[in-house]
Each structure stands twice: as C-alpha cells, then as structure tokens.
C-alpha cells in the first residue's frame, strides 16, 4: 500500500465512469455565478439549487416520511456511519436498503462516514488503509476503509454516495498534514471508484479537499475532475474556519469545476450561507442545523431566527412566521394547522410535538428559500433577490450585514449600496477554545433530544 507522501497522484487509466443521473442546466445568473438546474436521480427529479435535510438515522427527527414529503423534500440525507452501527449492514441487506427500511420513495444521499471521524471520534487513528476507531456504542474497535464505506453505501442503496475522504479540520495549522490528507483523499477516491459495485444505479461523488489553501484546492479539483465522477462535492468546510476563507474556497473551486455537473458543498445550512454560496456557484447543501435548532425551540424565518422559548412569545397568537406556506403556519381555513407561537412556546422543551412542529416549519423554510432562489435565477433577478433577502434578514439595517457576505458578494459583482467593510468583529475569536467549535454545527453527531 502506498505510503502517505505529498507527491502528486498519477491519474489512473480509468474507463469512462457510468452515471445514474442527468444534469440539465436551466439558467445562469447574468451577474453572479448562480445557476438553476434540473437533476434527475434514480428516485426522481430534484431542482437545483437544493437544500437536503438530514435524516441521520433513517428518520428526520420525529417526522413521518409522509410529513417530510409534505414539506416538498425529494432528496434527504442519511449518515452511513450511523446506519453502519445501527441497524448495521446485515439488517440493511436483509431489509433491502435504506429506502425500504424507512419507507421513503424519494432520493437519499449518504455521506461516507469520513466527517464523523473528525466530529465524533477523538480516538480515531487514520492510516493509508483507512480509519481505525472505537465504537461509540460499546468501545469495540472498528475499521473504516474506502472499500468498506462504498460497500456499506452500496448496501444502503442511496441515490448519491460519497467517497471516503481524509478530513482534517480546516483551521489546522499543519500544512503538511493537510497536503497529505488531500492526496490521500484522491487515492481513496480511486479505491472508491474501483470498489463501487453499482455505478449505473448509484452516483458516486468525489469530495474536494485541501483545507483553506487555494492552491491545494485547485490541485485537488484538477485531479478529481479528471476522475469524472457524476457529481462533485466541496468538503472539509464548515469546520470552524472564518467565513471569508470559506467563501474564497468555494469561489475558487466552483471556478475550476465543470459546468455540467452538480456541485455540493457539505455541511452548509444557515440561510445567509446558502444565499452567498449559491451566488458563488454551488448547487447542493446539507446541514443538521435547521432541524437541530428546531429541537432547541428556534424557528428560522425570513426576518432571522426566533427563539420561541422566550417569554415574549407566550401570548403571541400569530403563526410562527406570517405568510409562511408550511403546514404549521397556514391557517386552518387554508388547510393548515393554525399553529401559534404561543402553542409552540407552551410545548417547547416539554413535549416533543413542539419540536416536530418547528422541524416541519424549518425544513419548509429552507426548501422554500432554495425554491425562491431558483425562481429568481431563472427570471434573472437574483441580485435583487439577494438584496431583498439581506434587507429582510437584518431588519433593513445595512450596518448589520455581515462583512464576509459583503466581501463574498463583491467577488460575484454584487455591491450593496451604503455598506462598508468594517473590522470583522463577529467572527473574531477572542476565546481560542471557540476555534474548535464548528461555525455551522454541521453534522449530527449524537442523538439529541428536543
């Protein structure tokens, strides 16, 4: 087995890779790099740009598949790492895959389990062959290799599967380790491609690594694009890096990626991040934040995050968000449930039904945000959309616009009037311990209660 070196990986002589998807570019924003596309997957079409809610353990936090479908979701995420532990590969094989396990008729994307190495496992040991770690359930030793990961994802039967990558936290100062991880991810991609048993029914996506070093990212893009996977992910981000750095990486990568393939930025889900990332040319996103924050009693709205547990909502008999089209917010006369903030406040952190209701609302909000971006791109009014979005999100107070977003949007030729870039305070970490906390708590790493 090749040892970890920083020499460039030779591109192997690969036969053209089959693909189980079709990608149809519908529209391009004339100002930004945003695009609208149709992606047809084995379990039906989805429209890009797209947000994918995370059903970590084959269930979206208390919602029935029927309820998830009603939010408009047609592609959700499962975590390979979690499904590998519970119910385990044998059960998945016997049941016939994750679709059958959870009664979900639409598409599923599974990650490779690589991210959990960073987020969950302090005691992981990464070598060229794979990742050795202790089961978080009972402490027994386990080994995850690219072959195992793909085998497991083949058994899961997800429509999009991810390569196993070597993830190093982006803020790591160790450039040599970062380079090693990037090259190892390329070598592991080759092993994943070789191991992939169902290329005509499952789409393997590669994952661009390289930390915050743009040259390393460019090198990784070049190598991985040459391997011609059906889709491409930008990985290793949302691990606590400054948003400026994040935007530079996404912008660099999307500039180097082929136009006719879907681009998936892993672990992104804050509304502002989604809008900026779409402007930077990314198509697909996932994040546990919308569903997790729902269980903490927070509602995402066009006017920012509302902590419904706050006493000010105890007597608020309006919907969670005025004008929202979700099942909870719509009035009874319009076929909705007529849920009020007061009722959610009454239930929050006392009955799980409160969490379920906010989960429905938050997933709906995220999907509706993506749909409205898509419409704006198709009608070529995306820059106006972005301005309206930031205006609403910050209560028309331009001084509250985050600097990183202003800078990133400048890269895409969007300028806000009357804004100036200040010394970034919001993302300055005075406390060094905070640096290890992810900005977006991006992957579900334990079973949490509402």
């Amino acid at each position, binding site marked *: 087995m090749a040892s970890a070196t920083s020499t460039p990986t030779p591109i192997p002589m690969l036969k053209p890779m089959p693909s189980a998807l079709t990608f149809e570019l519908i529209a391009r924003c004339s100002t930004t790099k945003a695009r609208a596309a149709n992606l047809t997957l084995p379990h039906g079409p989805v429209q890009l740009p797209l947000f994918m809610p995370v059903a970590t353990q084959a269930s979206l936090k208390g*919602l029935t598949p029927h309820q998830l479908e009603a939010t408009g979701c047609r592609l959700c995420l499962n975590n390979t790492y979690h499904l590998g532990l519970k*119910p385990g590969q*044998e059960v998945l094989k016997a049941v016939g895959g994750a679709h059958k*396990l959870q009664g979900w008729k639409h598409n599923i994307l599974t990650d490779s389990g690589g991210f959990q190495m960073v987020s969950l496992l302090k005691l992981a040991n990464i070598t060229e062959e794979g990742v050795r770690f202790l089961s978080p359930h009972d402490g027994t030793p386990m080994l995850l290799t690219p072959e195992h990961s793909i085998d497991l994802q083949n058994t899961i039967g997800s429509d999009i599967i991810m390569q196993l990558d070597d993830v190093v936290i982006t803020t790591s100062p160790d450039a040599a380790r970062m380079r090693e991880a990037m090259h190892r991810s390329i070598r592991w991609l080759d092993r994943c491609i070789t191991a992939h048993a169902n290329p005509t029914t499952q789409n393997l996506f590669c994952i661009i690594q390289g930390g915050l070093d743009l040259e390393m990212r460019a090198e990784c893009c070049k190598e991985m694009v040459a391997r011609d996977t059906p889709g491409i992910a930008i990985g290793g981000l949302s691990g606590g890096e400054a948003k400026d750095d994040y935007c530079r990486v996404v912008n660099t990568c999307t500039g180097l990626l082929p136009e006719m393939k879907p681009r998936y930025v892993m672990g992104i889900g804050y509304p502002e991040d989604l809008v900026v990332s779409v402007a930077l040319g990314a198509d697909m996103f996932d994040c546990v934040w919308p569903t997790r924050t729902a269980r903490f009693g927070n509602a995402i709205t066009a006017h920012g995050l509302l902590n419904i547990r706050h006493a000010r909502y105890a007597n608020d008999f309006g919907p969670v968000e005025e004008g929202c089209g979700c099942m909870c917010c719509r009035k009874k006369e319009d076929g909705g449930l007529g849920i009020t903030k*007061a009722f959610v406040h009454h239930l929050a952190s006392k009955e799980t039904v409160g969490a379920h209701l906010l989960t429905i609302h938050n997933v709906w909000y995220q999907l509706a945000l993506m749909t409205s971006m898509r419409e704006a791109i198709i009608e070529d009014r995306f820059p106006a959309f972005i301005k309206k979005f930031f205006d609403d999100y910050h209560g028309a107070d331009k001084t509250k616009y985050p600097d990183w977003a202003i800078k990133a949007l400048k890269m895409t030729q969007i300028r806000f009037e009357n804004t100036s870039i200040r010394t970034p305070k919001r993302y300055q970490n005075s406390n060094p311990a905070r640096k290890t906390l992810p900005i977006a708590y991006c992957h579900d790493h334990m079973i949490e209660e509402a």
Partner: protein
Amino acid sequence: MSISTTVQRSKELKELVFDIIKHADAALSSARIGKLSVAGRKDLETPNFFSLSSRGAVPHLTPDVISAHTQFGGVYMALEDFIERAGNATPPIMNCPGPFPLHTFAALPPSLITLLAPRRTPAVTAAVGNSNNAISIFTSNGFQTLSNKAYINYAEKLHPDIAVALADIPHGSVPGTKRVTKMADRTQGWLTELLSGRKEGKPAIFAPILSIDFLDQSEYINELADEFADDIDGLAFYDSNLLPDIPETTALSRLPKLSLDEPSSPRHILRQISLGMDLFTIPFVGFATDAGIALDFQFPRPSQEEGIVSKGTGSAPLPLGIDMWSTSHSTSLTPLSIGCPCYACRSHHRAFIQHLLSAKEMLGWALIQIHNYTTMSTFFHSIRESIRNKTFESDCEEFARAYESELPEKSGQGPRVRGYNFKSEGPVEQKKNKAPWLPLGGDDQVAQSVVPSDELAGKLEEMGVTEQADQ
C-alpha cells in the same frame, strides 16, 4: 308544562346530547350503545374513548398526524397543564382568541371533542391536601392551588365541550375517616357552585363520582339523582366499582358515564363496559407506547391470519402486545399487527420500528402511538358490534380465553422522561434518564493506548466495519 317538553327543551339548549341507541341483553349485562353529539364536532358512538393529552398535545402526534392517521373522537385536557403562570399573570391560554380557546390554542382538529378536567390522569400525588375551597394541582412550575371559583372561570372562558367538575380526590394517598366525610360534602358544594353560575348550559358538565365507598357519598349521589340530574350532562367515575350503586333513575341512567378509573388492561375496560360505562380515558395506551410495546389484540378473538401464526404456541393465551425493543424484529418486514389498517402498519415494518427505538429516534414512538390508538379504536368498534349482536358477554369470555390478562412487562427504555410530570420522590433519587453517551474508560485514558493495534487491524478489516470484535 309536561315533563316531556321540559326534557325536549333542555335538550335543545344543551350543547351536548347523549342518546342511548341499544342495550345489551339486560339480564346479563348493563352494556349499551350510545351516541354522543356535540354541536360542531363529529358524533361519537359509545362505548368509546378519549385520548389523553399532555400540555394540549397528544404525546408524539402532531395535529396533522391526528387528523390523518387516528380515529379517536376526543381529547382529555388537564387544566393543570396550562396554568403554570397563574401565580403572577394571566395564563396565556386565557388570552387565546376565538370562541373555543382550548381547541384553538392546542390547534386541535375541529372534529374532536374536548374534555377538560382539573388534573392529569394519572395525577401526581400532591404534597399538601385539598382545602374546603381549593385543590392542589401540579403544574410545570410545581404545586399550586386551584380554587373552585378559578376552575369555574377557566371552564367558562376556555369553552371545552365537556368539563369535569372539581372533585376532592386524594390522588395517590388513602383518605382517613375524617377526610372521607369531607370529600363528598366538598365535591357537592363545588358542583352546586359550578352549576349555579353556569350560563346557557355551557360547557357541558360531568359530575364526579368519588373513589370512596358508596355509603360515604350516598348523600351526594342521591342529591345528584334528585336535584342535579337535569343540569348535569354526564358522570365521571374516579372508581368504576361505584357503577352498580348508582340509583337507576331515568334521569341518571340516560347520562353518559365516563371512566377516569385508569384501567390497566383491555379486560378491565370490558368489565367496566359490562357495568354500563360509556366513555374511557386509557393511560395504558401511552404507557405501552413509551415502553415500545405495540398493542396487538382484537375483540373478541385474533384474526384468522394471526390464529394461524399462533397455532404453534398451542392454546396458551396470546400476549396483548409486542415488545418492539426485541432484536428478534430487526429484519422482520411484517407489520406490527397483521391486517392492521393503521399508517404505521401500512407504510412501515417491524424492522424499521425496532431500529428507531434502538436508535432512540422520536419517530419510533410516534409510529407505535399511531398503531396503539388505531388498535384501541378497532377494539371499541368491535365491542359496539358485539353489543349490537347481543353477543357481548360471551365475546368477553372468549377474549379472556384468547389473551393474557395484563400487558407484557416493558423491557426497553422510553423516551426521555420530562421532569414536570414526575414528582421528585426524595433527596437520594436516581437519575430518571440514563446518559446516552459516556466517556470510554476513565478521563485519564491515553488516546493512543486504546486505538486498536496494527495486528488487530488486519483482522478487523476482514470482519468489516459493522462487525464488532470482543476485546
């Protein structure tokens, strides 16, 4: 004015009408079929049950799931779930707009009947007893007192379809002889106060029957029969054993009878129905769901498919539920109950539900709750059919032969226990919830030392990622 026109008139004025449709064979049983009609709600055929709510929500089920996947006709609401702020402000539910604040606040489907009672069932034992004009209640902020005046005000403003009058019930403790004499007096006084202040017969009132000997409350019950019978709309039994003692006057026997007696098994329900009970609240449905037990019984006998499956076990009585924690279900693609029409059984299988419980995913309990409520609805439907066919008594005997008498013991854990409905028992109490994740070994363990060695790695690779080695 003749008696019949008085009855007719009071019926028109009442929000709630109860018609007795059919009696079982009177010589054998007091079981009966009735119809409960509330203006604006779906009619409810009895015998039937109300689901229990916690803080206005049926546990695990959002209102859209209730509409789409359950058939129960009403919801029991405990006032103590809504008034934790009563001490220093108006409870928010009292500010809820609309003609039916209780319904609107809880976003209940309009077809469901609401039943308001002062306390949850089962209720937490109060630290201090009740007084002459108030009872102790347990809110999410701790114990409070609820006066009869306040309860009357709440019942009037919240506009439930039915309110159970305040009763002096010593939940959880055995009343002494002095207390027993007071219980009936207090309850009678509170009921008098409630009825005299009621406007236009709203809401419908169920008079409580106390959980003490008939003789100790005979004066109160006779008063109900003689004075209150036309003003009250039903009876709420805290002890179903009192049913045979209720005077058989026309005015009382036409009233719907609600059980707040916490039946522990289907057999108890059947017994109460044969004594003449019409409506139930059934805490064991929720207990079974939280324990991961899928109810699995049909009245009076298992369906044919199940009969075939169970042949192997001979004539031993069948269990009333299936423990879904058991790993024996982990690859089973069969529904919870064969032939069950519920959403969980139509759309999912045992393997998924077992996985969800084991992964502690909230959907697991939601699906079992849907199934368990459907099982109860089917059970009551079959009971009504049986009474209609005049086979109820023999069907009960057959049911007793076919099934075990009590629900199976729980083996798995429930969802996280929430503090506000479980009173602390004392200073050295064990944690209610086990920590789901613990550090491996001690804190001082060195990371490298527990990572498997190189030699082991090869072996592990052969075993695959999901295999776990004993070390």
